[in-house]
């Protein structure tokens, strides 16, 4: 097997995640799909690191995880705050900020 397959897998997962973001209305699921996309990129990073034989890609993936953790914390708080005031977790319901 060619290790490049990891990259194909990464692309596939990323696309699925992106489609999920576009298709799902539940904010939590949308968020999960975002995480999926991040994970996909991490996989690509790790693969690239292996490709180049150094650890820089892994470091980036590591930072991505840190950022993702921070992001999840804040994002989920926002979802909760919204849910608390509007009793819904649907991203379509938060649509007041428009023209």
């Amino acid at each position, binding site marked *: 097997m060619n290790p490049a397959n990891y990259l194909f897998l990464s692309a596939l997962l990323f696309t699925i995640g*992106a489609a999920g*973001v*576009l298709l799902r*209305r539940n904010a939590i699921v949308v968020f999960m799909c975002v995480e999926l996309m991040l994970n996909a990129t991490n996989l690509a990073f790790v693969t690239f690191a292996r490709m180049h034989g150094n650890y820089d890609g892994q470091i980036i993936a590591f930072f991505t995880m840190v950022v993702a953790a921070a992001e999840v914390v804040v994002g989920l708080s926002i979802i909760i705050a919204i849910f608390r005031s509007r009793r819904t977790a649907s*991203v*379509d319901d*938060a*649509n*007041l*900020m*428009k*023209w």
Partner: protein
Amino acid sequence: MTQTSVSSVYLASTEGGAGMHSVAASGVFSATWLVIGLPLLGAAVLLLGGRRTNRFGHWLGTLFALGSFAVAAALFAAMLGESGADRSIDQHLWNWVAVGDFQAEIGLHLDQLSMVFVLLITGVGSLIHIYSIGYMEHDENRRRFFAYLNLFLASMLLLVLANNYLLLYVGWEGVGLASYLLIGFWQHKPSAATAAKKAFIMNRVGDFGLAVAIFLMFTAFGTFSFDEVLGGSAAASDGTMTAIGLMLLLAACGKSAQFPLQAWLGDAMEGPTPVSALIHAATMVTAGVYLITRSAEIFNASPDAQLVVTIVGAITVLFGAIVGCAKDDIKKALAASTMSQIGYMILAAGLGPIGYAFAIMHLVTHGFFKAGLFLGAGSVMHGMNDEVDMRRYGGLRKYMPVTFVTFGLGYLAIIGFPLLSGFFSKDKIIEAAFAKGGTTGYVLGSVTLVAAALTAYYMTRVMLMTFFGRERWKEAPVGAPADWHEPHPHESPVSMTLPMIVLAFGSVFAGGLFVLNDAFVNWLTPVTGFSHGELPFSVWVVTGMATAMVALGVAVAYVQYARREVPAVAPQGSLVTVAARKDLYQDSINEGLVMRPGQYLTRLLVWLDGRGIDGFVGGLAAFIGGTSSRVRKVQTGFVRSYALSMFGGTAVVVAATLMARMA
């Protein structure tokens, strides 16, 4: 043919004469600047002093004018003591504008020609100052009036004393400003304000000519000082000289109210009468004649320009005379007369060296008698509740004897009664016109003769209607206001009659003195040059013809206005009369050709600016605003739509990258 011979005669005769080799001012002459400085200081003191100077302002103003006259007289005396080129004096004051080749100085040039003008301006000007003390006695703004009079004198003196065209331009416009202020002195009258504005703007049209003439001089010679331009004029091309000449003529037309810029003069009668006297006799309208005479070399170098000058002069002579015949307003009749007389001068100046001296001579004599006539008219109005309609005068000789006599002498002088001032000066111009030679000479001569007859006619008419005949002022006019009361004609105070008497002396004797030994011509020749034209016939024939024409004019007028009753209301009159009363439709023509198209153009442009240029700008803004208000609907508020567009964009970027890589 004749023309060329004349100009060659001129060239021969003025060798070393008109070249303006002058000496720097020293001795008495170093006080030349005081001539201008004194009235200027007077104006400044009176204007800045404000109400504090109200009490003595008129005396102060008169004092400054008289002081200026005294300095002028001293200069004249000193000049008589000099001879030849030493009579031409330059006084450099300070460098004004110096940019590259453009070198303008504030410098004065006093020579025989300027001297004549300085004496006339300060002399007659001072008399008018004195007269105004009495005339403006009851005006609350008398101080301001004297300030403006002083300003007027200063500007006019600057005009005639400048040693370059740019400084002359300053005086030129200064005169325009002073006339604006004085014509519009009674600003509360809308008609006065309008007349003042009209005068200034028509003058500005003339100023345009002067400005362009200076541009032309600068591009042709790189300078615009009198000595350099005039000295070099022979070297320049004909076309350039003709262009400069015509532009100078345009300037002269504006200031001297010559055709086609004559329309402001009649309206200028809205100003107080001393102002009219000042404008018509001593300042302002004479400036054009001065300019042409001063620029003699330029015109001598361009026969075409000279021809145009004579044509303009001839037209104006007749124009003024015809209008003068129909006016019932005493001041407007005199104004038309001025226009006609200045026409004489312009015509004479256009004749070249044959005429310059006579033009100036007529200018001086005219200064005397026209000032006298206007002051007389002012005196009449003073005694008649400011009535100006001659049809409401009549038989006033009994009530104002001094005015009658002085006015009468002025009248005799202007019609050219033998041996009075006007006789000599006008006769010389008629001679010179015939002496021009050829068809032109005959045409011009005939015009001047006809005009002489017309002058006699309308002046006699004025005289008769005012001082003789039935006392029409005793009857209430048709449609008189309820508070109309009969005027009580009375003689004016001494401060007013005294100047009139002095001027009457001038009217009577000036001409005779001037022709004695050709004193005047000899005096001016170093500046203007002089050549005797060759008359096609004897001098006495011309004199005889002129006298006959005058007699004819007087006779017709006598028949019409002394033998017949003068109606208190103007009769219908013939077509010509109606046209003349309306100044030969000059205002209608101006309105139709300039004012109305201008107004429409202005309105169109205002509309265009708002709707066109700004409309485009506003339209652009509205278009962008409208587009964005439509495009903003894309912002649905659904975060997934935004995500979709982002994702689509990413896909496009990836596609583009791939395409770039593939290619």
